[in-house]
């Protein structure tokens, strides 16, 4: 019998080690798996490679990605909009790395990773600093440049310039869903869907916090936003979710 429902978050997260790559759903604070992140912060993991659209705002007492950054658990952040002032300070000091990825490219790279594709050509960022090898990923002391984004391979197709982007295959994904069933089928709610299904598709192991679980059956087939094969563990967090 298939049953991906777990009694608590802690057991689902034991595979995540220092240095793991973890994709996390959410846009700003919308659809961020706050409870899973809190549970992850209870563990002694450092040096994570986090793949998420935003870096949190860096506010006092903030949950979510901002908490991971504040507790200095992140070595590298692949995102489109880091925002977090403290993380920027450490970035310019050479303590952490930022891989800046256009938002649509970030979404598509996760989907490509989850779809077994080897890469894709996109017009996004062609002719910009995010494609020409000048964007600094990591500074050294005194502001020297230690690492930049690689210069992207470009190709003219039907008269237009495209750049080659690679798939993302993070070790883990942390995902927030609205509804789940024991097969791991998921349904999201409005703008909280955003990167969540894409992170789930891409990861080697996907852990979901769901507002509600269909304990007495399964979700209707046509109401499912992401089918169960992309999901490994589901934890119910009804009542815990910040609203």
């Amino acid at each position, binding site marked *: 019998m298939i049953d991906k429902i777990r009694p608590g978050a802690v057991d689902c997260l034991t595979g995540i080690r220092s240095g793991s790559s973890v994709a996390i759903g959410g846009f700003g604070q919308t659809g961020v798996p706050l409870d899973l992140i809190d549970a992850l912060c209870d563990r002694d993991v450092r040096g994570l490679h986090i793949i998420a659209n935003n870096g949190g705002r860096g506010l006092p007492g903030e949950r979510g990605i901002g908490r991971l950054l504040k507790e200095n658990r992140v070595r590298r952040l692949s995102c489109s909009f880091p925002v977090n002032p403290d993380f920027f300070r450490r970035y310019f000091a050479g303590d952490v790395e930022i891989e800046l990825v256009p*938002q649509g490219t970030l979404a598509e790279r996760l989907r490509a990773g989850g779809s077994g594709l080897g890469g894709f050509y996109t017009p996004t960022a062609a002719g910009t600093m995010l494609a020409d090898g000048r964007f600094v990923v990591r500074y050294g002391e005194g502001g020297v440049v230690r690492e930049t984004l690689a210069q992207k391979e470009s190709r003219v197709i039907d008269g237009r310039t495209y750049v080659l982007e690679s798939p993302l295959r993070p070790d883990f994904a942390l995902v927030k869903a609205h509804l789940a069933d024991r097969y791991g089928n998921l349904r999201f709610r409005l703008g909280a869907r955003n990167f969540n299904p894409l992170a789930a598709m891409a990861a080697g192991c996907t852990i979901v916090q769901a507002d509600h679980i269909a304990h007495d059956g399964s979700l209707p087939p046509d109401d499912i936003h992401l089918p169960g094969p992309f999901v490994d563990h589901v934890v119910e967090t009804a009542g815990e979710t910040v609203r």
Partner: protein
Amino acid sequence: MTTAQQGLTRAELARRVADDLVDGWCVNVGIGVPLLLPEQATPGREIVYHCEHGLLGVGPAPQGAPDPDVTDAGKNPVTLVEGAASFDSSLSFAIARGGRLDLCVLGALQVGENGDLANWLVPGGNPGVGGAMDLVAGARRVWVMMTHLDKQGRPKLRKRCSFPLTGPGVVDRVYTDLAVFEFVDGVLTLRECAPGVTPERIAALTEAAYSVDLRGESI
């Protein structure tokens, strides 16, 4: 610059842009002053606002309690209108890159007289690009809404952008607090001055070269 303060307010600028939207258009609005557009309903015109993380049919800010799952590109609470749809971020950018956005409206740090747009990074500043590069690569039209001058009083309409580009040659129109410009056959063209603003004043506050083809108060 005090001169710039005599032009349109942010709300007036949003109203001015809203006047040019066409009934039925699907429109993405970027962070900053473009986020005021969904507040500017025009009788007889139905505009579908697209929010890049995965919503269509975004409306004004809520009157009552906000729904944390319904936010705009700036993470502010908004509402959904009739016809709204939700989807994941890859489909959202398929809409953008696939040419299904009639328009995207973005803020800008600089616009070049060649149509280049710079809106994501002040050199030496904190980087953050969001969906801007995807949007300018895919939308059928790109309009810029911005103040005519930057905070230091320097013209934002320049011969060439000195800041890193969001996209080369992508801008179709520029709406500032002082004027409306349009790229006509690739040539930056002044089409309209804000009420009380003279063409001479625009000329004094604009570094970019441009043609003049005024057509009164509205395009």
